[in-house]
């Protein structure tokens, strides 16, 4: 399916250009955390932590965790409170909380390192307390992407490998102290392509779902080169995998063409389905049981696939009735009514930037945060290369701007993944 999709894309020049510009992103917000994280912020969040890509010549040029005050009653509302630089530039991408929400694990796609930030001692001032550097030696994986808390552990989905820097990769399991436990390669048999991207768990059903993207040789390659290489363009994931969570063994490979990225399980206790967006085909896919058998099926379209809007992040509402979708190319934030997950229906859209990537929402869904950067080599150029965090209020009808932090003006870098923080989570 990959080759077919790519060939079709290559046949259309505009499609080709857009295809290259898509890419991955990942989980964010309060409604999209691991179910093993108990301390959800169900009131007003105080901070947004932004994992930010360093840009040469901007500030210290290094990747950094930026803390922004987002409490409307604060004197520094909408301002940068500080940042913690990791001292290197490694394509900062995603992050995740430990199960006790005392630490954030974050990493870059260009290196096998994982940075651990303490956000409990002083939630307003995260501290870099540890760097985990043994993932490559222990697993051969490169580019840690998704950090998903399990009880006492962190399951890390990588995107690539150190052998050929292609897309065949796996998951690395660490304990919460950062000590390596085990590696789980993505399946390459039974229809599996070996690629990885996001992961998400439904404990009630003992199921882990994974999705698939591409490897280092593609995601670190300049766009102009990549689009001219048809063979490279074929090397994108077209599968999702269901795993027996307890046994950590793959049980079924689903064909989901076009790089399925973020995975969101409905948080409604009565539901047992997950939804994802395939970036290249601009389709929504539903994973649910049909007569006891897990199935994946296409259920909706995002924008005009012919224009390759590139859905790069999704955020599900806490009741599983709505889904926000950010499309990078057209800078549009869309809302889908998921009352019937078998037939998502778009009910709203708004252009929120010249390029947009991540979207995070508060637990009650009334506050949304959007950032701009996809990948250093894939972001747009010139005036279109906006770098920001934009906050919006959502009243169910309209997204209204609340504040904006200009990451270029602040000399911070490229704003990517977000996590919410609260001073109430302060812990000695």
């Amino acid at each position: 399916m990959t080759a077919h999709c790519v060939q079709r894309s290559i046949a259309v020049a505009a499609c080709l250009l857009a295809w290259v510009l898509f890419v991955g992103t990942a989980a964010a917000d309060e409604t999209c955390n691991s179910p093993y994280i108990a301390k959800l912020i169900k009131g007003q969040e105080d901070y947004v932590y932004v994992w930010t890509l360093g840009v040469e010549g901007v500030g210290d040029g290094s990747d950094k965790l930026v803390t922004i005050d987002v409490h409307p009653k604060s004197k520094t509302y909408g301002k940068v409170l500080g940042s913690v630089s990791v001292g290197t530039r490694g394509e900062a991408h995603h992050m995740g909380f430990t199960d006790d929400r005392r630490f954030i694990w974050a990493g870059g796609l260009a290196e096998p390192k994982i940075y651990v930030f303490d956000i409990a001692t002083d939630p307003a001032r995260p501290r870099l307390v540890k760097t985990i550097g043994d993932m490559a030696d222990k697993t051969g994986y490169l580019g840690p992407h998704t950090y998903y808390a399990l009880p006492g552990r962190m399951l890390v989905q990588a995107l690539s490998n150190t052998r050929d820097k292609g897309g065949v990769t796996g998951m690395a399991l660490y304990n919460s102290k950062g000590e390596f436990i085990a590696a789980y390669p993505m399946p390459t048999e039974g229809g599996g392509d070996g690629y990885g991207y996001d992961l998400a768990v439904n404990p009630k059903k003992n199921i882990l779902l994974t999705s698939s993207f591409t490897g280092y040789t593609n995601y670190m390659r300049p766009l102009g080169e990549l689009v001219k290489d048809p063979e490279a363009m074929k090397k994108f994931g077209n599968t999702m995998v269901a795993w027996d969570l307890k046994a950590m063994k793959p049980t079924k490979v689903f064909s989901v063409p076009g790089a399925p990225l973020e995975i969101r399980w409905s948080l409604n206790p009565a539901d047992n389905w997950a939804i994802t967006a395939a970036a290249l085909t601009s389709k929504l896919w539903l994973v649910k049981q049909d007569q006891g058998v897990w199935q994946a099926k296409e259920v909706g379209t995002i924008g005009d696939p012919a224009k390759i809007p590139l859905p790069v992040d999704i955020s599900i509402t806490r009741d599983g009735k709505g889904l926000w979708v950010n499309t990078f190319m057209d800078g549009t934030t869309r809302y889908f009514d998921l009352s019937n997950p078998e037939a998502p229906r778009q009910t709203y859209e708004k252009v929120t930037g010249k390029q947009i990537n991540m979207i995070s929402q508060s637990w009650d869904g009334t506050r949304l945060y959007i950032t701009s950067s996809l990948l250093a080599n894939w972001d747009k150029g010139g005036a279109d290369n906006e770098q920001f965090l934009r906050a919006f209020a959502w009243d169910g009808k309209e997204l209204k701007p609340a504040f904006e932090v200009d990451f270029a003006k602040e000399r911070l870098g490229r704003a990517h993944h977000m996590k919410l923080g609260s001073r109430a989570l302060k812990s000695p």
Partner: protein
Amino acid sequence: VRLRAAALAAWLIGAAAPVLAHDVAPLPALDYEPPAPGTYTLHRIMAAPDGEVLDLDGRPQRLRTFTRERITLLGFVYTTCVDPDGCPLAYRVFDALRHAVGDRPGLRDKVRLVTLSFDPERDTPAAMRAYAGTRTTERGLGVPWHFLTTRSSRALAPLLEGFGQDVRSPRGLSNARSRSELSHVLKVFLIDRDGFVREVYSSTFLHPRTVLNDIETLVMNP
């Protein structure tokens, strides 16, 4: 396996032995078929920490006395906890397992249960004795269940840190119900005979069937 699971499920529905601190209401059935014992690997997650604890008579003991030589299921609780998905759930699961393991001659002498308080200020040895009720004196089932506390927060701290058990006062957390409530992620630890944690359960994954399967897996593949 299915017969055994069905028998356990039937027992769980029928068992409702009263306890002092918590009612043992029937637990819901699992919504999936867990993998059979021995078909999967329980990796060593970390070494269980050691430190001083107090038994029900107030005597100081080393925690390692209760985490070696047998497969140990250890859970942190505080006796005034009312969150149904917290300490009371752990109590119900422990109670169910006490019966399930006790019914199996091949397991009952290989397993122990440990309930350790993370609220030493209120959970004195006397309070823990009241919390335990008759659980420590019922010898018929043959599965030891130890109720422990600590002398002070200072004595408790390295144990919490070692297990990665977070506890904090509510201070405005939206789900806090009272000033006496301690905010924590429920964690129950399965520890092998050599003192290594092999599984950690939170409330969304703590069920007698999965724990029993894990215990049998450890017996088959220590």
